[in-house]
């Protein structure tokens, strides 16, 4: 029987839907009876998250959709079998991400690089919905269906997917996916800025097509201008980028005054104009290194993209870079030597971002966090490294193209790019430390038990990492000392570090509505967990000693002047060489 007829049968469509629903029922049934309320809340959240990802997987996976069945069974088993906490969240998210990736990969391989419009849409919409559920999974904590949730979880990804499908029609699915993935990694997910940027690019692309009638072109023109209504400055950038897909030279001509205007209007007084411009421009080679070797007829587009990326104001966030970076992605050279390393890189960046954006990490800036895993913060230095490695790979790929078959070259070049990435991640990994606390067994320092200490036999220590949070610490002023960390050496001398609220640690319930209203300042959350109807969080801070020394004891003492009801929970204490 042909796959197409099988996939379109009513029976298969029902099964595709039944599997995620059965998984949801199994996990929800477990959550409803779990006696630990925190565990039950987490189980319930993971059940909804799993269903939200598995339903798109069901409509994405080619028949017989084993990845759907196995993903559902494994996710359910993880919720049932694993104890609550970050480990369980990680397990479920990894299973869901793998199920989505396998389904998408198999489907894309089946459909080829130039699928029909219908096939593109049927791939991209479920893929976008699944990715959105992972990237914006925090929205699923509130089980009530509100227009905002529906727009964020369904309307935006569907619109974004349709825009990418339009781009795929002319540029091919791989490049359109790179452009879409780059835009999505910035926000992360399909937010208004990223989606409008993709829609504008798609509209610009439509304007360039000769076969379309004037009503479509008028609608496309309106779509190009729409982002300006939403937010004038990034909207203008999106419009210029969209125009570059139709009239590259005109767009470059427009980009210069727009860039000058944006530079003048949004220049931050405390950062030099060159520094800011370089910092912003660095995102281009950082996320789309292949743009350094553009297609010959697209050089103007890349220049326009570079001008816009360097000057667009990042308000509200990085996603205003979506249009220029996606434009750059659509302009790269169409040879395997350039596109394959770019695809590997974009996939890795999106995977890392998705991982850090999803439960239990829920990082506020997951893209920056993912890139920092390479050992350098996102910026010109890292961009230089990425571009240099890319050029080396592209050069090697071009050399391979002389004697190797296309399939073998693609596989080998992908593996080489993956190996480079792996090596970079290994090199960027911080040194392994010695953990002094049992995982997921916090030590609480309060007024009754204000001190915790541990000995270790003369270990060389270069830095100390503390993972902690505060209870009843919302009222503390930023910078208020909450504890003192002391290291004692062999001679009995001590060095100390003050752990401060809002800088090194923070309130565990900072995201609970009543606490959030007070505007309590906290450092970026390290790990989050479901605490009823909000995400609780804990924080991580590192204290680097002036020089390595051999110490024998660590002692943490709650600050004597701290409020009586303040409690400091230590989740992990790690001493590193």
């Amino acid at each position: 029987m042909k796959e197409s007829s099988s996939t379109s049968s009513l029976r298969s469509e029902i099964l595709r839907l039944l599997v995620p629903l059965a998984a949801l029922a199994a996990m929800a049934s477990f959550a409803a009876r779990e006696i630990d309320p925190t565990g039950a809340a987490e189980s319930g959240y993971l059940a909804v998250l799993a269903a939200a990802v598995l339903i798109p997987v069901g409509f994405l996976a080619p028949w017989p959709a084993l990845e759907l069945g196995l993903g559902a069974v494994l996710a359910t088993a993880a919720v049932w079998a694993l104890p609550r906490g970050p480990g369980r969240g990680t397990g479920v998210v990894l299973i869901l991400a793998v199920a989505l990736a396998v389904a998408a990969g198999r489907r894309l391989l089946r459909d080829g690089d130039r699928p029909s419009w219908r096939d593109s849409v049927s791939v991209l919409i479920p893929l976008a919905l699944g990715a959105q559920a992972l990237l914006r999974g925090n929205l699923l904590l509130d089980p009530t269906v509100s227009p905002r949730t529906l727009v964020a979880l369904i309307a935006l990804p569907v619109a974004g997917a349709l825009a990418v499908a339009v781009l795929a029609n002319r540029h091919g699915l791989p490049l359109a996916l790179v452009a879409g993935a780059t835009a999505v990694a910035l926000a992360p997910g399909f937010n208004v800025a990223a989606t409008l940027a993709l829609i504008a690019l798609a509209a610009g692309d439509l304007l360039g097509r000769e076969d379309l009638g004037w009503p479509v072109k008028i609608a496309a023109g309106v779509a190009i201008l729409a982002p300006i209504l939403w937010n004038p400055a990034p909207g203008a950038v999106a419009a210029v980028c969209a125009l570059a897909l139709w009239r590259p030279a005109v767009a470059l001509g427009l980009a210069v005054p727009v860039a000058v205007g944006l530079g003048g209007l949004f220049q931050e007084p405390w950062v030099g104009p060159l520094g800011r411009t370089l910092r912003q421009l660095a995102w281009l080679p950082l996320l789309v290194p292949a743009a350094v070797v553009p297609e010959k007829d697209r050089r103007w587009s890349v220049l326009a993209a570079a001008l816009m990326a360097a000057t667009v104001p990042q308000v509200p966030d990085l996603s205003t870079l979506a249009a220029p970076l996606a434009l750059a992605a659509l302009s790269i050279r169409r040879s395997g030597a350039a596109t394959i390393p770019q695809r590997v890189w974009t996939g890795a960046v999106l995977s890392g971002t998705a991982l850090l954006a999803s439960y239990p990490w829920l990082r506020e800036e997951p893209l920056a966090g993912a890139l920092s895993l390479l050992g350098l913060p996102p910026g010109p230095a890292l961009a230089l490294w990425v571009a240099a490695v890319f050029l080396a790979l592209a050069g090697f790929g071009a050399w391979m193209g002389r004697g190797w078959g296309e399939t073998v070259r693609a596989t080998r070049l992908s593996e080489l790019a993956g190996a480079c990435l792996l090596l970079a991640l290994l090199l960027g990994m911080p040194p392994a430390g010695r953990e002094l606390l049992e995982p997921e067994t916090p030590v609480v320092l309060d007024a009754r038990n204000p001190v915790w200490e541990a000995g270790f036999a003369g270990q060389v220590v270069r830095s100390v990492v503390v993972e902690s949070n505060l209870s009843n610490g919302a009222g503390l002023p930023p910078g208020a000392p909450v504890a003192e960390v002391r290291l004692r050496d062999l001679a009995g001398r001590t060095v100390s570090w003050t752990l401060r609220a809002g800088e090194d640690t923070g309130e565990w319930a900072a995201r609970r509505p009543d606490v959030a209203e007070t505007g309590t300042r906290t450092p970026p959350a390290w790990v989050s967990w479901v605490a009823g109807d909000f995400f609780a969080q804990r924080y991580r801070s590192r204290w680097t000693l002036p020089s390595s020394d051999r110490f024998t004891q660590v002692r943490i003492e709650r600050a004597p002047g701290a409020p009586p009801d303040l409690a400091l929970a230590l989740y992990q204490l790690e001493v590193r060489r």
Partner: protein
Amino acid sequence: MREGREGIVHTAAVLAISLAGVALAAWKLPLTPDDPFRGTLVLLPLILGGLREIHRWGAKLGGDRLSPRGTAVELGALALLVLLVLARHHLGIGNDGVLAAGLLLILGCRVARQTAAFRPLLGEVLPGRPSALFFFLPLVVYLAILPWSARHRQPDGDEPFYLLVTHSLAYDFDADLKNNYAHRDWRFFMDRPIEPQPGDPVGPNGERYSRHNEMLPLALVPAYRVGGKMGALATMAALTALLTWMTLRLARRYFPEHPGEALAAWAVAAFTPPLLFYSYQVWVEVPAALLAAAALDRILILERQRDWGPKEWLGLGVPVLLLPLVKIRFILIAAPLLALAWWHAGRPKRPIFLLAGMLGALAGGMLLYNKLVYSNPLKIHTWEEVDPHRYGLSSYLKGGFGLFYDAAFGLFGCAPFWLLLLPAVALLAARRSRLLFHLAALSLPYLVIVAPRIEWYGGWSPPFRYALIALPLLAIALVPLLARRERSGAWALLGGLGAFTLVLTLVWVTLPGWTYNFADGRTYALDALSGRLGLDVSRFFPSSIRPRPATWMWPAVSIPLVTLLWWLPGRSRARREPRAAALGGMTLVLALAALLPSAAARVPTGIIEIEDPQVWKSGGHLHPDRWVVERTRYRGGWVLRVGEQLKVPVVPGGRRVRLTLETEFIRNQPVPFTLDLKEGDRMLFSWTPGRERVWEKVEVGPVDWRAGEPLVLVAHGLAPPGELNGVILDKVRMDWR
């Protein structure tokens, strides 16, 4: 020829590079020596090299090539997981099991693809001698899981004693363990001290011998001498892999026309529990099963040629004579093997009588030796114990069903995929297959002795221990069934049971200790579930150690249900694409899982086993101690002492109930003692025991019962210094009106 030599050189080079990678990883891997992943990651280059060469040789010998894209995806996923392993402390991933399960899934994916790629190697008719790759693939898998398993599970049951004998043979060249116990030589392979077992013989000069035979330790000695405990375990992995190869070879004697299905059955035997557990443990059942399979294979060859040469003498004689030397009870396998040889080889008299005489002499000699050394021909057992007449039908049923259905020790409990044996056996019976006859002839005399015993479950062991010897034939029994998989019901069963088995395999391999259940009618997995739900989930699953309605209902329902489901026809569209039903089977498994917590919360409480985890206890302790030998001889319960209480969640099955408490009073002080039975805060009955150290039934009611109230038991009395008075609480029966 030259090509083959070049291939071997290539393999040697790859393995040399892999070994260099192992050395490099051991030297530079940024993991502490006690990190649970260290062993796995150090061995990873060798595993990758092994899998690469298996693929290369498979393709060279005519097998399919694996898709490079699939391999790239596997390598990418592996790289991601290795990174997560190395960075797990920096990312706050607090559960190592998740990452271990991920690594196992990647291995499973590779093995599934490679197994499918092996299909052309078997041709249209199963070859007489399958490729060595069918040995090497399981071996690599067993070696891959070995470091994790060995790190997370100490040798247990008989294992430490076999290893200590191995140590003594390897270093002292004798079997006297006196010095080994004195020097604490157990520390070379475990952390927990061991002592001589009750009944171990003592020599005239104070020598300490083990009651365990030396045959298996002798086989382990060379590897133990080279690689210590890991060397011995690697040898067991090799023996297990050889058993799987022999299973495939044996399949030709029965169903040569189904190579694809034989390949699937081989994969089920090799890569699912219980054989997967035994691959990294020291149990005599694996070499015994290997010897039995080798002997049977030789017997079935004799059927055609019927002339006896040295090959036949060795091929049959060696396994038959080695079996009792491995363990004396295997004489019950060796004797039927001789009978089968006589039957299939054209009833020759001389060779069979000679072998029978040798076997008899060997058995007699062993019994005599045991009588002289242990003062008991059966070592620690009695003739009554092995007398089949001594046991009633219920003992046979409990043990017989327990070997397959028991949630803790049964084959189906550890890997539900084996439930397919139910329609498979029905099919064999309908076809009057000789496989069924061989299975019965080999297993029944042995199981008649083993199954009714009080320790039918294997003592202190992984599941299906005593019947493991039949596993090769059980796997082959699946072949004709898998050949008839064209219906939707069959695919639904394959999908549902396969997915469930995959999940359980991940759990068992990730938490190897969970396969060593205590003989108390519970399992680690169900206890964890009951504890998290605060509900008695175990009562829905069969246990032959603690018989309950589920013990009998599961066989009664599953035998017809699974058999009928396999033959269930689909609708016309489904008939064209029955594989779609696999997804339906997985949906069914999920739906049944969804029902379980609700059922536990709604089905009325009938019997409460007080020691179970869903019962909240303020204090007290388990009775008898979990580690007591032959624990099933005791009534398991909970000791509640003065001042302690417990609360039992109750699901009412009516408005009134009659309670029957089975308890024993322990008097440690000459002071009064009472036990209050309450419905929440409401007093139902206050029991003052009259007799001590006697099991009594305390009956209360019928009384009214309010929904949502727990049953509370509180121990009262004076508490002078010293041991307190208390009661052993076994169970409460609730009869609803």
